[in-house]
């Protein structure tokens, strides 16, 4: 038997969250659903978009190796970027954490500083340094006679990975930093007193405990890199496309919205699956550290 008070307490959460829920539905779910629907529409050079239900776009993505190669490139770049940030970012965070008071805050600012600068500006910086014959570094090295041809950076995957890693580094450092904050401040002394050397302490005591931080940082970096637009657009341009830049081109250059929508949807679904899957794996694997 339910009383008025019960009814109210059941309804209250819904009523209270309604405004935020409506905003969420309005600006996220509806456009997302429309994008998914769009991916099933037809498109022709002269007839434009036809609101019918066909699998043409999806079949094209599935059969044309161009798309497979492009998606593979997208994820390869994202994986390499993630590895690079983990390999550089985890030690960086550890060293940062061991610095004393004032230096710590200065270097934290240095690491977080890039977040205050637009991604476009940061990536253009790389382009200025390495872009073709006119890049600052290339010019310098060539006029010094150290290299005969400019170091290839623009329109290469290597360039894209380096620029992306630079952009994503703060996320990895912050994530590892947060894990380091959770360590018992005496844990290294404890290991030391039991006879462990510095390398053993890092390998056996510190690494296993900050691994969850590295992995959650990796998830953030991976998903942001796989869906990054500005950096691949500047470094890769029209020549070296990734999922995000391809979808953009389909929408704004070819005007084939349905195909662009299909690419965007596929990227989203793949990312959600990868992130949710790896998150579940990590939580299961590191249950005792998280608890």
């Amino acid at each position, binding site marked *: 038997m339910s009383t008025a008070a019960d009814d109210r307490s059941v309804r209250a959460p819904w009523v209270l969250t309604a405004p935020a829920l409506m905003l969420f539905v309005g600006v996220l779910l509806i456009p997302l659903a429309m994008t998914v629907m769009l991916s099933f529409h037809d498109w022709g050079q002269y007839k434009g978009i036809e609101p019918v239900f066909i699998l043409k776009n999806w079949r094209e993505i599935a059969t044309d190796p161009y798309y497979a190669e492009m998606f593979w490139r997208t994820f390869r770049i994202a994986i390499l970027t993630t590895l690079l940030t983990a390999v550089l970012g985890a030690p960086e965070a550890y060293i940062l954490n061991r610095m004393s008071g004032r230096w710590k805050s200065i270097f934290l600012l240095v690491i977080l500083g890039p977040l205050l600068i637009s991604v476009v500006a940061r990536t253009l910086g790389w382009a200025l340094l390495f872009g073709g014959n006119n890049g600052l570094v290339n010019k310098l090295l060539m006029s010094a006679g150290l290299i005969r041809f400019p170091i290839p950076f623009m329109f290469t995957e290597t360039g894209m990975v380096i620029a992306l890693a630079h952009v994503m580094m703060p996320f990895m450092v912050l994530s590892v930093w947060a894990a380091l904050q959770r360590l018992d401040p005496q844990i290294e002394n404890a290991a*030391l007193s039991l*006879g*462990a050397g510095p390398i053993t302490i890092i390998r056996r005591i510190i690494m296993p405990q900050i691994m969850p931080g590295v992995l959650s940082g990796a998830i953030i970096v991976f998903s942001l890199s796989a869906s990054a637009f500005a950096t691949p657009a500047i470094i890769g341009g029209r020549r070296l496309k990734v999922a995000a830049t391809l979808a953009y081109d389909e929408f704004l250059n070819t005007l084939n919205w349905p195909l662009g929508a299909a690419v965007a949807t596929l990227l989203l679904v793949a990312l959600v699956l990868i992130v949710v899957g790896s998150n579940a794996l990590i939580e299961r694997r590191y249950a005792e550290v998280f608890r």
Partner: protein
Amino acid sequence: MAYLELDRVAKQFGAQTVVDDFSLSVGKGEFISFLGPSGCGKTTTLQMIAGFLDPTRGAIRLEDKDLTAIHPAKRGLGIVFQSYALFPHMTAAENVAFGLEMRNVPRAETAERVRAALAMVGLAGYEDRHPRRMSGGQQQRVALARALVIKPSVLLLDEPLSNLDAKLREEMQIELRQIQRTIGTTTILVTHDQNEAMSLSDRIVVMSQGHIEQIGTPQETYERPASAFVSQFLGKTNDFAATIDRTATPARLVAGSWSAPAPAGLNGPATVSIRPERIGFGDAGLSAKIVTRIFQGNHWLFQCESECGPAIVIRQNDGQEQPIEGDTVRLAWRPEDMSVRARVVA
């Protein structure tokens, strides 16, 4: 014969002297407590012995060998930290085994010693638990087992019981003492709990603001406090201002209407320090009025206003009739129960 010796050890952080002129010699198998208020330098001293901090001055010797020259990883001391500092990603058994692994103890022997150590602290059957799934008391025992399994030359305990509730703390105190007695490890315990220090240790080092106030057995420090600080810090005490009356022969020590023969060697103003449970109600002595009377089961607690300021008296509840609030009483005590110190008059 000193086993562990601290010789005029001092530690400075910048301009701040945190430990100064700390000299102590610990016998083999002894249980020593560092007792003092927060921030008096107990942890700092312990960390210097452990090697996590280097002394600014002075020497630390273990069996006549200079300990400060030995790397902390090679000192072979067992340490239990205030936060336990267990390795959360390892099971209880792996935690305990870590020190043995570092010493390349064979696998079979390791397994046996880990099992025995966990059994000794009453954790048989908890081998595969992770620390985060254990209670505070259980974690504390794992930390103790981890420190003891390496057969340390000295066991250093930094407030290991302060995170436990009162009942568990008492149980662990008894257990700690038993374990220490059985295996005979030289032990240094840091605490700011005077009851813990008194019930566990052979000797107590009372510290204040980085220096030693007194070193002595629990009874000595309680009954013969070397300074006002010690008598105030170790349990309740009454301090009465007294003077020497030279007109009488032999000279007498006088506080209000109480007096006793003056101890030799004392000639100026003095402070008479007396424990509340050593004061009795008599026919002669310091005159006082009872302000409050509190019944505490096995004893009565009286707060009095005496000629020489406030006084506390504790009487056993032995069934005798006790004075009530508002009564005027005389406070008396045996001369051998008090300690007298020269008083500096400002």
